[in-house]
């Protein structure tokens, strides 16, 4: 049973466009939601995170929008660059330690 769901599985955007990656979860006890970025051949690395007390978190070109009532969140990447091409994982935790990861969205940014 997938605790965290992501869509789409893959996404292609042109350089300069905004990429929108979606995530949803089942467990209402989840209160911490990090997004990890993974390049081929490497381990995932923390990109940006949000806690359930906030509805938006911004870090440069990356923004998380969080809807607690609907148990949904999204990652927006504005002015997408070819270097942003990677797989993005949404994760969730009920206790700030154990993380449950989604299946990932593979983003390709075409120049």
């Amino acid at each position: 049973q997938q605790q965290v769901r992501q869509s789409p599985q893959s996404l292609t955007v042109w350089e300069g466009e905004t990429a929108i990656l979606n995530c949803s979860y089942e467990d209402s006890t989840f209160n911490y939601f990090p997004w990890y970025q993974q390049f081929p051949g490497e381990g995932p690395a923390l990109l940006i995170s949000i806690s359930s007390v906030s509805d938006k978190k911004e870090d440069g070109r990356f923004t998380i929008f969080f809807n607690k009532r609907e148990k949904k969140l999204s990652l927006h990447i504005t002015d997408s660059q070819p270097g942003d091409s990677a797989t993005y994982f949404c994760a969730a935790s009920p206790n700030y330690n154990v993380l449950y990861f989604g299946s990932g969205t593979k983003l390709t940014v075409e120049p």
Partner: protein
Amino acid sequence: EAAVTQSPRNKVAVTGGKVTLSCNQTNNHNNMYWYRQDTGHGLRLIHYSYGAGSTEKGDIPDGYKASRPSQENFSLILELATPSQTSVYFCASGDSRVANERLFFGHGTKLSVL
């Protein structure tokens, strides 16, 4: 920068054989984790540890054992490897003393069980 080192980077094993995957971290983190990554499933938690001597079961512990002999080292053991355990395995460490713990991952071990 936090460092997590996994060995080996690649491993080919035979069905029924014993496999040990090793992980070392120099971050002085209490928590360590083993995940496996498969297409369509993302990262799934196998075992984790809160400190030396402790191991906890994650979501998919069947067929795996873990060992945490020291703060720095965390091993994943496949006593009787099966082809279904062919995957990429990631070790991670995190600081339990920090709210919103950030995980630092190794580069992964690609395991093929023939």
